[in-house]
């Protein structure tokens, strides 16, 4: 069990990074705050004793996805970066919708009685996860591999652009 002080420090940092991402006026700063929040998520996985997922989070999100995002920002910039990430006309409406959704979810969470289990979590999750992925969930695992291949080929074709056929 993680100590409450550590949890609250990480939680406040995570929410602050997420808010700063949405409020930043410069899209490069937004991308950097997003990386901070990805690392915060990895720390939360560690608190939840999901060590493999924490490593995957750092590799896939803080490593690969954030590089892709910064790459796309750099390829689509126009003029200076100062005002590159402004709100549209739905700033207040969007905030209201998000706040209402939060109240709904919070209400549901606090009014449900969860059947908390007292069994201890496994020491290491890598071995059991491998057995699940290559045993019980082997078909979804292979489908996910095909999905990644198709998405990669599709992304290359879309980003490169198709030449007019003769």
């Amino acid at each position: 069990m993680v100590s409450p002080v550590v949890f609250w420090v990480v939680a406040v940092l995570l929410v602050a990074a997420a808010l700063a991402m949405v409020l930043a006026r410069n899209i490069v700063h937004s991308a950097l705050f997003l990386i901070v929040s990805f690392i915060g998520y990895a720390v939360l996985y560690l608190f939840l004793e999901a060590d493999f997922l924490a490593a995957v989070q750092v590799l896939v999100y803080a490593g690969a996805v954030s590089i892709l995002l910064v790459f796309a920002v750099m390829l689509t910039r126009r003029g200076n970066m100062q005002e590159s990430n402004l709100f549209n006309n739905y700033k207040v409406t969007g905030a209201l919708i998000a706040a209402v959704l939060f109240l709904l979810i919070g209400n549901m969470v606090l009014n449900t009685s969860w059947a908390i289990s007292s069994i201890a979590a496994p020491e290491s999750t890598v071995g059991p996860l491998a057995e699940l992925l290559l045993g019980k969930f082997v078909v979804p695992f292979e489908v996910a591999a095909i999905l990644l291949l198709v998405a990669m080929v599709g992304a290359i074709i879309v980003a490169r652009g198709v030449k007019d056929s003769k």
Partner: protein
Amino acid sequence: MITLEHYLILAAVLFCIGLWGALAKRSAIMVLMSIELMLNAVNINLVAFSRFLTPDALVGQVFAIFVIVVAAAEVAVGLAIVINIYRERQTSFVDEFDWLKW
């Protein structure tokens, strides 16, 4: 003592911040970033349920791995589309993507 509810509420806060960003930002790349934030919040929910409700089954973590796979595919295709649109229209603002409107 940190309980399941703490993680669920924290994930709800992050999900709603991501939703606000996805609804209220002009840049298409910022919308994709906000969607990543929302998907990660959902993953926290899945792993927290797995840890507190069925610690010995690990099914929630398997599900979180599949969500990460789909999110990576989504962001790659989404960014490719944004780059292609930028090439054609010289803009990455969602308001100006209006081919299907008229």
